[in-house]
């Protein structure tokens, strides 16, 4: 059915989109004519894709990411590309090179990041479904801050082909929506094996969410309620966990000692990978051109200084340092050992419990400019990065509010048990006691 389109003229008062498609093609299928927003680090053939970076301004991919192909096959209309922290590097979407996105719940606050545009577009009701990407919490954080649902799938469950890499070994594309059922639906469409992605696993996702939670063992790591977690957030999350307990789940407190260094392991790993991933933006093949009157290194350095924002340059330099001779052992190699320990912690805990639960974020959404120094910003990722380090699935589902601002309940599951975290979130969403 060629030529079918839907009109899309949203009132984007929260600046969720970097660009929209006024007449978006669509087709038949499970998502026939459903408008879907796509984070701007996911390649869309014929639609500019910038990662919210100056260095990719004007870049129009000649191919679709696998997830975009799957959306189109399901009939969805790609109606726009959403704002984000440049290359996914941030927790607030303030690091977009173009403009910040506002939180629809409270426009004086950030929507979270880095998939802040996708979260805001969903929360504002501009689209029912959006794709985000999650490297260290970038789906779950904005989902929590904006009061929507976001799933970071098991590493390998959704193809990364066409996702512009920030930290390859950590990140996944995942669904964001207002309800668990919609997240589940979008996950069904995008998941599945992709031979083009060597890290993709052959494990399709077909699932009807089941709210039955009796007998499910929920582990609650003490570290998820430790220092830095706002007691009011902790209280709301404990209430949510209690609700699940009342519905028949068994709640077991436990310990996750590797949390002590998980965040450091995460930042060393992601900056190392990023320092390499972002080397290709030299202005030769795409993006604003390098100055060919200058010698290569000078032109290249200038291109990168002008093209990358401060946080991106900081992370490239941190990663370069962590991989450099003399420091590889202290940083990169240690981070990988730490990562194995995080994995081991999860494996050990998942022998005793079925899922782990805790807050998604230590606090509610920040005010703009509230986190001005990088380290304190990094520290706010402490609860989301463990799932990325271990490659396990994790979902954030709204579980209450603190002074009118949403709080997310995070549920993490065993490797390839995305269905179970969806079910637990669904059980909570259904509410009430059994």
């Amino acid at each position, binding site marked *: 059915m060629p030529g079918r389109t839907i009109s899309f003229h949203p009132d984007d008062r929260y600046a969720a989109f970097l660009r929209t498609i006024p007449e978006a093609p669509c087709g038949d299928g499970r998502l026939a004519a459903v408008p879907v927003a796509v984070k701007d680090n996911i*390649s869309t053939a014929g639609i500019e894709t910038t990662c919210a970076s100056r260095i990719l301004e004007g870049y129009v991919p000649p191919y679709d990411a696998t997830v975009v192909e799957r959306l189109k096959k399901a009939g969805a209309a790609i109606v726009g590309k959403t704002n984000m922290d440049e290359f996914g590097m941030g927790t607030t979407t303030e690091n977009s090179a173009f403009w910040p996105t506002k939180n629809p719940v409270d426009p004086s606050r950030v929507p979270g990041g880095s998939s802040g545009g996708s979260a805001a577009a969903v929360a504002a009701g501009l689209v029912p479904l959006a794709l985000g990407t999650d490297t260290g919490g970038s789906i779950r954080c904005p989902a929590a801050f904006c009061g929507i649902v976001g799933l970071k799938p098991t590493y390998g469950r959704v193809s990364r082909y066409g996702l512009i890499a920030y930290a390859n070994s950590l990140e996944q594309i995942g669904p964001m929506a207002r309800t668990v059922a919609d997240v589940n639906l979008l996950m069904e469409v995008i998941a599945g094996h992709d031979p083009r992605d060597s890290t993709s696993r052959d494990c399709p996702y077909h699932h009807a969410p089941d709210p039955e939670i009796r007998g499910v063992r929920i582990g609650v790591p003490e570290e998820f309620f430790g220092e830095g977690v706002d007691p009011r957030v902790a209280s709301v999350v404990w209430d949510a966990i209690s609700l699940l307990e009342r519905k028949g789940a068994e709640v077991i407190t436990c310990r996750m000692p590797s949390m002590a260094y998980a965040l450091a392991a995460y930042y060393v790993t992601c900056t190392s*990978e990023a*320092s*390499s991933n972002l080397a290709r933006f030299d202005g030769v*093949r795409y993006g604003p051109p390098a100055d060919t009157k200058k010698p290569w290194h000078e032109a290249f350095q200038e291109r990168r200084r002008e093209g990358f924002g401060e946080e991106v340059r900081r992370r490239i330099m941190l990663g370069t340092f962590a991989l450099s001779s003399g420091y590889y052992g202290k940083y990169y190699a240690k981070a990988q050992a730490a990562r194995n320990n995080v994995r081991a912690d999860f494996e050990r805990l998942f022998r005793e419990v079925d899922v782990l639960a805790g807050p998604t974020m230590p606090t509610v959404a920040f005010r703009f400019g509230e986190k001005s120094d990088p380290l304190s910003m990094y520290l706010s990722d402490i609860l989301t990065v463990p799932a990325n380090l271990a490659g396990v699935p994790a979902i954030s589902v709204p579980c209450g509010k603190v002074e009118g601002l949403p709080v997310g309940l995070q549920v993490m599951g065993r490797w390839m048990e995305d269905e179970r975290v969806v079910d637990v979130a669904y059980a909570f969403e259904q509410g009430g006691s059994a």
Partner: protein
Amino acid sequence: MTVIVGLEIHCQLDTATKLFCGCSTDYRDDPPNSHVCPVCLGLPGSLPKVNKKAVEYALKVAKALNCEVPEESEFSRKNYFYPDLDKGYQITQYDKPLAVCGYLDIEGDEGEKRVRITRVHMEEDPGRLVHKGGADRPKYTLVDYNRAGIPLIEIVTEPDLRSPKEARRFLNKLRATLEYLGVFDSEKEGSLRVDANISLAGSERVEVKNITSYKGVEKALTFEVTRQKNAIRRGQKIVRETRHFVEARGVTTSSRSKEMEQDYRYFPEPDLRPLRVRDWAEEIEIPELPDSRKQRFIDDYGLSPTHAATLTGDWQIAEFYDSLPADLKVSTATATWVADTLLGELNYRDMSIRGVPLDHFKELLIIRQSGDITEKAAVEVLRSLLDQIRESGTCELPRQCIGRLGLFAIAATEEGADDPVTAAAREAIAENPQAVADFGTGKKEALNFLVGQVMRKTRGCAKPGDVNRVLTRLLSGDE
């Protein structure tokens, strides 16, 4: 002064597609950037996927070089910034190479020699750069990524070679081995690149980069040996440095720019999974290699070790020899003809065995063996055919050529007076009374002289045996 040489050899594997994407490797006659895709252009979001055939080929090489294949190997990123690198890093292997600890036996300066192989690993070829505005004062660079992503193997030797000649022999043996394996085509431009480490015992080591031909290796190293010896003689110290070989001038030049110790910041490639291919390597079958084939030629065909070595030193020639009829193969004359005459004529013309229709030469050999043409005529036909190929790429059938040149052997009839050989003999006798007289006094050389005259008159088409017989008969007055 002992010369110490180690080599790092990069060879393109002859697969149909690139190492990490499905783009065709057959790019040499095509426009720039016409064999590229999101993967080999390094477009954002694209992901590499390893070509199974490339791994198989690399394993064959590892096996042929008697290497150990570790339990696990993996790809790493080598980070450096250069416009020929589409991703800003090269996917290669670093601390977990595909294969280690092998060896290759060669004919060394002092007999049989074992050259140790440190490692064999896989990596992707970068793109090709064209410097615009002249080599001395380039204005900017043009980049073609058709070559980007072509599978390479890097073979690193221990510093076991002791002369430029040995280095050349090693390379020849390596090339032959790779071609026997069917994983490499040495004829393709730029399919082989060599970096050489060379030092004189007790001195610093110099790396010579950018050697792109077999002959170049010997030339570059010979130049370096002389340069380093002269420097030491003059009391200078050899500095540890990287030099570039300038093929056209046969010299190496210092890279001048004080090459900062490069920090490539290797780390495991997160977009690829590790390889566990030890079992696969064990199962992989490799064909007969030059050494065993040489032995077979000696044992089965009775060839001399020298002939056997020459005939098996190149896969195509060895195949050609093996395809000859059984009775031809066991003849020293055939071996001589192929190893010396055919290869000599090819070499003289700077032609390769590839691109010549070997069936024609097989037929020529069969005709020669049958006696339908003489040895001398066969060489003339060979030369003509090769010249034709060089001119136009194709040539006549041997019989056509023989006919056109009138080179079929002229037979002398037993007692007949009219055959051309007898006629030429009569003429020669009539024109050379002195020789006839000398023959009468028992001078054997006189007969040889007359034979030569007859051969000349028959343009080499008379069989020497016939000429001898006819002349003897005529001179001894049987008529």
